[in-house]
């Protein structure tokens, strides 16, 4: 037996406008639950997006099924994500559109939308809407952004939280979304909680008050909501520095210049290869990646507690900003 579902404007009478990491998203749905769950992403006045996409969500009552392990496929301009037989998303990159049929359980699952679906949407559609997701943290001081990249386990999140607790503005500790307008780069965060591994409690004793839980990637971690960081949290800033974090052998902090081609190789290797059907989108993405690699790029090497790197960075950034203002 074949079941039929029709998705068209008449079946999706409700709508709302979201701002997601530099993009504008028009949501059409048949579900008040979806609109309510996405309310925290509602577009604010004065928001200037890099690009836009649409999200068509049909909630079906045929199956009462929650979230299952995801399975992803991609061919040509389409990417398909399945979270169980009742929950399927089709990302049409060429048309900048997402089609979804989901269960009522998923419609109201805040964690699913905030931590999985919207970040995945930006990961898949980002390049088509002029936003490049880069695997790096982002903090800012006086509006000037600091991107911090590094291999897994290098300590991006630990350093990000240490910087936030010493007064830096926090945007992201894991993925940052970069757009370009009028030759100027903008970094965007998604206000996702900072994820700290259990051993970081030795640097941040206050974490004892937080539970250790499996994160979405099944790794055991503290998840620290951004409002608990004790600093200002912003959704965007103008990045000026790109740091590559490495652990050193001694308890000190060093900053050495990095060539743009090395920075570019890092960024290119952190994004997915696109198929030939999306050449124009790949070219737009390459232009943003080139701009990222022309930020002031440095290798930050330190060992020991993150305070060592915080002091080293404060001193370095003070000199850099003095040089610019002079």
């Amino acid at each position, binding site marked *: *037996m*074949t*079941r*039929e*579902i*029709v*998705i*068209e*404007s008449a079946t999706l009478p409700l709508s709302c406008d979201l701002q997601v990491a530099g993009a504008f998203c*028009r949501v059409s749905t048949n579900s008040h639950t979806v609109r309510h769950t996405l309310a925290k992403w509602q577009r604010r006045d004065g928001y200037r997006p890099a690009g*836009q*996409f*649409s999200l*068509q969500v049909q909630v079906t009552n045929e199956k009462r099924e929650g979230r*299952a392990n995801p*399975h*992803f*496929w*991609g*061919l*040509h*301009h*389409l*990417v*398909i994500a*399945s979270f*169980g*037989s009742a929950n*399927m998303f*089709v990302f*049409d990159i*060429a*048309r*900048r*559109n997402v*089609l979804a*049929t989901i269960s009522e359980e998923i419609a109201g699952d805040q964690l699913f939308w905030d931590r999985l679906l919207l970040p995945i949407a930006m990961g898949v559609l980002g390049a088509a809407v002029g936003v490049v997701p880069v695997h790096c943290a982002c903090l800012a001081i006086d509006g000037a952004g600091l991107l911090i*990249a*590094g*291999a897994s386990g*290098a300590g991006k999140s630990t350093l990000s939280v240490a910087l936030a607790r010493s007064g830096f503005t926090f945007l992201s500790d894991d993925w940052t979304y970069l757009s370009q307008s009028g030759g100027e780069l903008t970094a965007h965060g998604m206000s996702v909680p900072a994820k700290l591994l259990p051993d970081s409690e030795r640097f941040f004793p206050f974490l004892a008050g937080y539970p250790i839980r499996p994160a979405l990637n099944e790794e055991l971690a503290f998840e620290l909501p951004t409002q608990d960081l004790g600093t200002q949290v912003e959704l965007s800033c103008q990045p000026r520095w790109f740091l*590559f*974090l*490495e652990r050193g052998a001694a308890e000190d902090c060093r900053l050495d210049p*990095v060539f743009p081609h*090395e920075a570019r*190789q*890092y960024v*290119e*290797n*952190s*994004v*997915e*290869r696109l*198929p030939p059907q999306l050449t124009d989108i790949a070219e737009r993405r390459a232009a943003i990646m080139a701009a990222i690699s022309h930020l002031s790029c440095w*290798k930050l090497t330190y060992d020991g507690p993150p305070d060592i790197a915080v002091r080293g960075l404060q001193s370095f950034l003070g000199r850099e900003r003095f040089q610019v203002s002079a």
Partner: protein
Amino acid sequence: MTAIREPVPDLLRRFAPTPHLANVVIEGFPLAVQTNDLQIITEMQRTCAEEVKSRSDSPLLVRVVRDEDAPADDAEVVVISAWPLLILTVGTGTTIVLDCERREILGFLSLTVSAERFAEELLPTLLKRFCDEAPNQPQGTSEKTV
């Protein structure tokens, strides 16, 4: 600089090779088939043998990947009509999408869907729907895109 990492692997199977090729006619549509499963070519050629006449000179591209890692559940067939896409799913592990504007059929099949079922049931279901829907829809750009 050790921070430079290896390129992201092809987690979406976007670049899965599809070395087996065939040109067939099914439900009156000329199809240029690309797949990694030789059995699919065999079954489509068998189905094609009964066809008489093609509706069009311009073939639809059919690119189908047999995904051995896909969830091997079997469930009802669901057809989602969202112009210009027609999407057919069988459980969690099989999804086939017909992009009516681009004239492409792209899909992944789990091990539970046989080549015979694909050629004789699933593909004809999509093609019949294409015949039903295409004349009623605006050509060129979709009304639903941003």
